[in-house]
């Protein structure tokens, strides 16, 4: 009961709670109940609603506004989304095309692709609002609009899935009960910094977007992110100059490969700065800043140390300014406007302390602290989705953006399907002969691996004696140690993990990503590939929790038994027989210590009568009466290549070959050092 202290609607909740415990049925309550509740009908909330709906689960979405995506009705202020809407790729593979579609949510409905909503490469925010509205409608998602949840707390109940229910209270004091709660509220509270004179600063959220209002002004923008540059871009041609102030050096997203860093679409000011057009960038810690107003209403930058004591309403004339000491102080001209564009943080205020939803430490403090499974550290059954879940991969991958969190929402849904409904992580089972194919297929089309590189990975679980394998898509990498208990799949006989990665030293704010010879072309040097490329890890058993949590710096995953990089490809098309498929096959063969080549039926026939054992391809195909015959033309090629023999012209002379081993199975076992042997 003490938990409810200070909560709005306290009295009501208290009485209802008493009533609840008096109820003859342990599960009954006076509150409407759902198994799954989602806070917020933004992209991630709708995405989760879609998966729950598809699975036939009992769920509801609470949305404070009257329609989905209310954030996009106001933001971005200048209405241009910077997520790419690439309508043409030259390919028809819909999964592949999602690699270049940053705005669509996942669904089975082809009409719900963003390319049908906008022709612009960087679309208008109104199109997103329209899209989200359609998404909720067409898929009949269960959304309760105009319902603002103002308080969330827990109610212990031993019959609840997680030992407690989530009790949600809306603006009208109505309460709702949920077994699992998804927080998809985004980051909505503007980041503010308190310093002397911060009251003179205008915020991004409210500053005028009409460039005419800036004519002939000196403007100082606080912040280094896309909103700061977007604001600058809008007024660049109207101001005298724009200065931008930030703590750290500029982080260009093309150098960091992180889409949250400064995008080229917004960086016009960099151009004018470096081309000596009066605009400029300055680095300083905003905490060591003070602003004073002079009698003309202009704003002077000073330092708190120069203001002996924080006196309210001091004027610039009354105190000493930095330029009095250092006459070339960079910000010695007064500004007409100071605009704060410092980003947003998560709104923790509606959550009762009982939920233990705390900010993450350090520069991720704007996000709640969650596990790699997107579940709250403190409260079982409380999940954070969407932008607010970005602490998992902040400044690394795309989990804070639609084209990333649409996949993490799916992963969370899959984890819950197993936890609460006993439905194991979806998988397909294949014979071992298809191992190379399965990997090649995924690395060429999988969008989740491509967008959520370093966060989601495909996992291939080998069957006993490596006769077959089970393929799991887009599993959260950091939960690898607990794969068996979280997915309901068995990993007793070794596994491969397929990820996509940039080169180890290719991403960073100070990296030159255009240096000469940056692309690796040689298969042998594939491990030095720089651009996003597939990497396959082999483990003989699941790594332990500690190994996963603390990998060696620079490594995404614990050190494997063996690793393979498929060499980076300019077209991101990894289907070349010699450069991509052959080295992958050799790697897999040496991990499994077997021969994964394909053979024509004639070769299998020969092996079947001249050796006691058959390669997997012959065992799986030929011996089951499904041999590959090939026609005369292919046979000729085989004979010309020396990989097949022409038995019709075989002479009577003894050949200088080993009996039973014609050239096809060329079997230099003395060379066949495998990774297994090296152990």
């Amino acid at each position, binding site marked *: 009961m003490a938990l409810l202290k200070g909560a709005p609607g306290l009295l009501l909740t208290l009485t209802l709670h008493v009533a609840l415990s008096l109820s003859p049925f342990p599960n009954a309550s006076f509150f409407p109940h759902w198994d799954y509740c989602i806070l917020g009908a933004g992209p991630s909330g709708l995405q989760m609603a879609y998966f729950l709906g598809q699975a036939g689960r009992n769920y509801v979405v609470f949305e404070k506004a009257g329609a989905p995506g209310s954030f996009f009705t106001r933001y971005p202020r200048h209405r241009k989304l910077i997520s790419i809407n690439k309508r043409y790729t030259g390919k*028809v*593979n*819909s999964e592949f095309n999602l690699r270049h579609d940053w705005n669509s949510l996942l669904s089975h409905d082809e009409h719900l692709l963003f390319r049908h909503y906008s022709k612009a490469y960087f679309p208008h925010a109104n199109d997103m609002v329209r899209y989200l509205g359609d998404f909720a409608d067409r898929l009949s998602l269960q959304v309760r609009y105009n319902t603002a949840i103002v308080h969330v707390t827990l109610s212990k109940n031993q019959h609840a899935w997680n030992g407690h229910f989530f009790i949600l209270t809306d603006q009208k004091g109505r309460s709702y009960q949920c077994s699992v709660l998804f927080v998809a509220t985004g980051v909505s509270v503007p980041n503010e910094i308190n310093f002397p004179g911060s009251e003179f600063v205008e915020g991004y959220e409210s500053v005028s977007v009409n460039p005419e209002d800036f004519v002939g002004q000196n403007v100082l923008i606080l912040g280094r992110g896309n909103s700061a540059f977007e604001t600058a871009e809008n007024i660049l041609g109207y101001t005298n100059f724009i200065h931008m102030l930030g703590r750290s050096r500029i982080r260009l997203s093309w150098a960091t490969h992180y889409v949250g860093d400064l995008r080229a679409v917004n960086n016009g000011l960099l151009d004018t700065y470096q081309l000596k057009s009066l605009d400029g960038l300055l680095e300083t810690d905003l905490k060591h800043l003070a602003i004073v107003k002079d009698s003309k209403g202009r704003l002077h930058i000073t330092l708190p140390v120069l203001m002996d004591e924080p006196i309210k309403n001091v004027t610039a004339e009354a105190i000493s300014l930095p330029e009095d000491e250092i006459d070339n102080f960079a910000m010695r001209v007064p500004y007409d406007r100071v605009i704060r564009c410092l980003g947003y943080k998560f709104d923790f205020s509606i959550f009762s302390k009982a939920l233990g939803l705390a900010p993450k430490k350090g520069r991720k403090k704007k996000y709640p602290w969650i596990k790699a499974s997107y579940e709250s550290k403190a409260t079982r059954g409380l999940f954070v989705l969407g932008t607010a879940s970005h602490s998992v991969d902040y400044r690394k991958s795309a989990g804070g953006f639609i084209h990333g969190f649409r996949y993490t929402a799916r992963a969370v849904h899959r984890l819950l399907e197993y936890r609460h409904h006993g439905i194991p992580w979806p998988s397909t*089972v294949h*014979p071992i002969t*298809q191992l190379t*194919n399965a990997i*090649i*297929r995924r690395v060429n*089309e999988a969008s989740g691996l491509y967008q959520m590189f370093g966060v989601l990975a495909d996992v291939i679980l080998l069957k006993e004696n490596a006769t077959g394998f089970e393929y799991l898509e887009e599993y959260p990498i950091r939960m690898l140690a607990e794969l068996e208990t979280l997915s309901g799949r068995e990993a007793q006989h070794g596994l491969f993990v397929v990820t996509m990665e940039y080169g180890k030293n290719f991403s960073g704010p100070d990296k030159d990503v255009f240096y000469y010879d940056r692309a690796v072309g040689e*298969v042998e040097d594939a*491990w030095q590939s720089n651009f996003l490329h597939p990497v396959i890890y082999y*483990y*003989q*058993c699941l790594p332990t929790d500690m190994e996963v949590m603390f990998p*060696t*710096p620079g490594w995404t995953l614990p*050190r494997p038994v*063996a*690793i*393979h990089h498929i060499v980076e490809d300019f077209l991101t098309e990894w289907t070349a*027989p010699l450069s991509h*498929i052959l*080295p992958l096959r*050799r790697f897999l063969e040496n991990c499994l*210590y077997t021969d994964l*080549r*394909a053979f024509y039926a004639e070769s299998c026939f020969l092996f*079947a*009568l*001249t*050796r*006691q*054992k058959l390669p*997997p391809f012959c065992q799986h195909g030929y011996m089951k*009466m499904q041999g590959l*015959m*090939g026609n005369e*033309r292919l046979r000729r090629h085989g004979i010309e*290549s020396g*990989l097949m023999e022409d*038995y*019709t012209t*075989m002479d*009577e*002379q*003894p050949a200088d070959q080993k*009996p039973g081993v*014609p050239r*096809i*199975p*060329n079997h*230099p*076992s003395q*060379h*066949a*050092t*495998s990774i297994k*042997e*090296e152990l």
Partner: protein
Amino acid sequence: MMASRLSMQIYSIFFVLICLLSRSIAKNRNTLMELSFQEYFSILQTGKTFLVYFSQDDIMVFLEELEKAAEPLHNYGISVAKVNCANEEISRYCGKENDLTKAYLFRGNILLREFPMDALFDVNAIIANVLFALLFNEIKYINSLEDFENIENAMKGKTNIVLIYVKAIGTPEHRAVMETVFVYGTAYQFVLTTETALLERIGRVENSDMISGSLFFFHCKLVLDLTQKCQKTLLEQPLTILNIHRFLKLMDAPLLTEITEDPEKVSTIHLQLGLPLIFILSQQTTYEADKKTAETVAWHLLGKAGVTLLLKDSSNLNIPTDTNVIFKRAKEGVPVDFFVLHDIDSIISLVENNTPNQNNEPVKEYEEGEIEALNLDVQDDQVVETVYRDRKRKLPLELIIELTEETFNSTIMSTSRSIVLFYTNWEAVSLAFLQSYVDVAIKLKGTSNMLFARVNCGDWSNVCTKQNIIEYPVVKIYKEGEKPVIYTGMLETEYLLKFIRLNRISCPLKIMTIEEAEEYLNGELYKELTSYSSVSVLGIFSSNMTKEKENFIEAGNRLKGYVITGFYSEEDALILSKKYAVTLPALLLARHKEEKIDSILLSNSDVNDIVQIIKSASLEIFPEITVENLPIYLSLQKPLLILFRDGNLNHKDEKEMLPLVKQKYLETFIPCWLNLETTPVGRGILKAYFKHLPPLPLLVLVDLHSQGQVSAFPLDQTLNEKNILLWLQKLEAGLENHITTLSNEEWKPPLPAYNFLRRMDATNPFKDINGFSTQKMCKNN
């Protein structure tokens, strides 16, 4: 003097060698001395040990070997000299002319041994023989198990025994043993044998003739009860001085030690010798039980790893709480591993899986240059290569409709019969088969109402996922209102054609009248199809046999596309039952080629039984083995008796073989024949068996399922019924030799892979900063 040196307990053979070596270099007497007769005589007076070779005319090969032996022997205090009989006055040791010259071993002027030249065939033999002659007290030669048991009994409670088997006296192994005995002397009782029978009885049985040497350590010193056997430990490495020395040191080390200090800092003889050390964690309360466990483990791991009991409570070490075993590698700087293991076996397997080079085959580490020489980038997959070479060919794909995500469902739904190939355009097997698929489409063009379609899974991934395509390529036939049928036959034109044609009729057919049934059985009904099915099967049931009929219908469904099936269950089914003299339910099998109708009773057969009955009924009794049909016959798990022929069967063969085939005796085989003209790969098979092409016809017995033995009917005998039977009987009795035994080698990776992990380490050395070792084994299981 020799004896006194022998009695010295010198533990490090290296120390000895280095001392001896430095001494000998100083005196520079490590080469073969050529002595005049006078010198020889005076040397005998010094009382030293000498190996003297009296040479008639120099046999260069021998002299070279003798010279090589001079230095090592000198290190053991034995000088080597040559006396030239031709130059000197004849000594009695020079022997007569034409006699084989000999070498003689003297100590002072006492002749210890004379060696015929053929015993001293090389440097190893010289050293082994000389030391063997000198060390007759230290090493006993035996040739029976009884001899050994006597020694064993005598040594119990006193001395440990080292039993050595070498294939022959004078081998490198023998030399290694003798050099070891020289150093260890009477520290152990050394026993030597060359009897394989003895070796087998001691316990090392597999392929004893393959073993060049073997060494057992018998722990007899511990045995106080004379009825008890001495425990023994086998040296699992080849007999070299180094290996034996290491092994004996390990045998001498205490079985189990106890420590309380930090495992990271402990160093024992095991670690120094490159073996791992196991710490079994114990505490006061469980000390006795833990000690017992540790001892058992130590016995099992003797010679492979050291075992130490670590008392947890008397030390304040930073060890994870539930750990009970710590594993420390010999390699310095590698952190220890912590394990939770539940039984002794897992501790043992921990060590065994961690010991590199168990077969002592050094793992080949490839240098950069070597890897290049292996041509890793050269395609060695015949299917991929042939398809690649054919990549510029334009296939007439316009005959086959490409289905897309949008068109797939509507097309399949609106077409009465369609066949779909699921493939990807980067997968070689798919592309190889696509050619055959196109050929089928060409052949059926205009004659079939079947819609030919394909789905490129590389483009239309979702379609393939929905159609549950888990491998490439897959062919499915879709028929209105029916479950799609997956083609499971050979990926080949003719087979697919046959499947498509047989799929035209619904299987099993419902036969409506007796007349129709007769037409069906004599092949007039569906005449055009009978050539595609070796038998036509008719199930006959009386009208009340619903369950039996259902089973048959299901079986017919499963065989759809491969065998024609039909059923008759009208009121007058008894007419058929009477005509073919069979009680109902029954199967009638019409073999159109032989114009024969067999009947089979179907009592209590489930679906699988029926499928099996029909499948085996389609087999022939003396089939021609082809690439296509071999797997069916192999699945019967019997040895193949193959008549290789260069052309068709002739009357003579048939006359001899057919009666034989029908005999009971051949039931354990699959008699068949192979035509080299239609199955040319048969030549490759014969070459594998005989290394050349033998004259044909030839009868060969291939036993693939037990030992992989191949035997051939003797070429000098006439191939007739009587001789064949005789030959088979002899084979069974083990009186005939096999030509060859087929390799049972596993299919290993044809070539290594680039070791990126090592390349990465070379550029940026891997630092295990967290103290977790690299994943080398699976913990907890």
